[in-house]
């Protein structure tokens, strides 16, 4: 907290320790601080949303549009049409009314339609390169090109081994997820079992990374407490 005043550092330290007090047991201070943080977050979010998003992108153009309309349909009058976007947005709130719930379905339908269209494009653009990348030569040259029809680079044992593991993992895991028939035939059974093991290894990597992230969050606070608050430390 460079540049922070002493009272700010003390306040931050007390809040940090108050939150960490949950590690000992649930307590009133922890719950109080939690509620204060939620309240601050919501309030701040609302202000920023208005000042940086809604005002410049919706309110101000709309007001300018109405000014133009009232000045005898001067250029820019079309911006007054933003009012309809606002009206559409308010339809969401009819979810709170049993009588007029159907109004909210109009805007929900529009959102779903737009979302479905975009997801189609998104998935295509995101996953097609993934699928193309999963077709790899098992005997590869140093630059990744195949033995037949590739470049003039020498054959690389390391690259080939890498590709074999990559393709082998994809096949094993996909076989594991074939649920439409029983895994009775030995080659399928063993491949599926290998797929399960490989999945376990990936879950282990996930968990290891989870620990790393949680640790980093804690370390940043620990650094604050030791360096900025208690003035201990070598940095």
């Amino acid at each position, binding site marked *: 907290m460079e540049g922070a005043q002493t009272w700010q550092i003390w306040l931050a330290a007390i809040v940090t320790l108050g939150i960490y007090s949950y590690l000992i047991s649930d307590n009133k201070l922890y719950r109080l601080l939690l509620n204060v943080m939620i309240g601050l977050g919501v309030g701040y*979010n609302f202000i920023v949303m208005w000042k940086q*998003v809604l005002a410049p992108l919706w309110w101000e153009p709309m007001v300018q549009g109405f000014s133009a309309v009232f000045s005898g349909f001067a250029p820019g009058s079309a911006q007054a049409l933003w009012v309809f976007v606002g009206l559409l947005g308010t339809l969401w709130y009819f979810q709170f009314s049993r009588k007029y719930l159907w109004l909210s379905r109009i805007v929900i339908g529009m959102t779903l339609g737009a979302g479905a269209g975009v997801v189609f494009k998104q998935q295509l*653009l*995101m996953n097609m390169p993934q699928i193309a990348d999963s077709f790899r030569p098992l005997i590869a040259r140093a630059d990744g090109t195949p033995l037949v029809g590739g470049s003039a680079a020498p054959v690389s044992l390391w690259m080939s081994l890498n590709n074999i593991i990559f393709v082998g993992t994809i096949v094993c895991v996909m076989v594991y997820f074939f649920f439409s028939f029983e895994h009775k035939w030995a080659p399928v059974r063993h491949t599926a079992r290998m797929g399960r093991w490989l999945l376990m290894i990936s879950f282990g990597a996930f968990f290891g990374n989870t620990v790393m992230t949680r640790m980093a*969050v804690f370390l940043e606070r*620990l650094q604050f407490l030791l360096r900025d608050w208690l003035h201990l430390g070598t940095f």
Partner: protein
Amino acid sequence: MWEWLSKLQAIDRRWIYLSIWVACALPFVVNIKLPVYVSPETRRLYEFIEKCPPDKVVLVDSAWDAGSQGENWGQVEVVFEHLFRRRIPFIVTSVEITPLGAQFADKVIEKLVREKFPDRKYGVDWVNLGYTKGGWQAIQQIARDIRQQYKKDSRGYSLDDAENLPLMQRVRNIEDIYLVYSVTYSPMEDWIPFVHGVYGTPIAFGCAGIQSTTYYRYLLSGQLVGMLVGVRGAAEYDALLHPDIRERNSMGTRLIVPQAFGHLVIIVAVILGNIGYFAARRRRG
């Protein structure tokens, strides 16, 4: 003996918390340095920024706040330092995730300008456009015409204000952007289909370690040019920026040694728990 060993799987969690506190605090109090080995994903991002031509601009989507600053602060700090050092102008945005993102980016930049680059000027070397909402729509709008999504920067200057924001006068759309670097706990994958997929603009991520496992596939397919993973990524990038270990002082470098100590305690706890588990099984016969 088996009975005693079986108690290892029931150690009070508060002892484990205390051990982690002590182990992690030690490297903060006593100066301990450990070597850092640079991973390929970090090196690729560093080398990509090294090749940036002088007329291009980097777009940094800095959408993180206090919840993930342990990892994300270091990740933007080192890249901002690299950009300042090479005098590559950059634009900061904060799309969708947190309204605090732009403020936190400002704090990192202010620190760098104050301590290392006092001659860098706002509006010339960097611009902070602030927070915006809209997810994939906002991303597409920024790519097509940045002025349609942002009318003003975070300080209230119009993007067409040539006096205060000369940098923005040469940035219209994604064609003027060399690289999009998205830093947050879990970067929005929408950058990949809607910017890299449509315009071919290179994308890089700085993400929390927990999320990295899902993003490695984009590195293999070339959809990401590089990635900084957690504290490790930040510390590795700092090592590339400063080969001399005494010159490193970024957040990533400061946290990497305590993190190693903390991991050591957790590994020991996992081993002890397993010993306790097998001892209990043995005792039951």
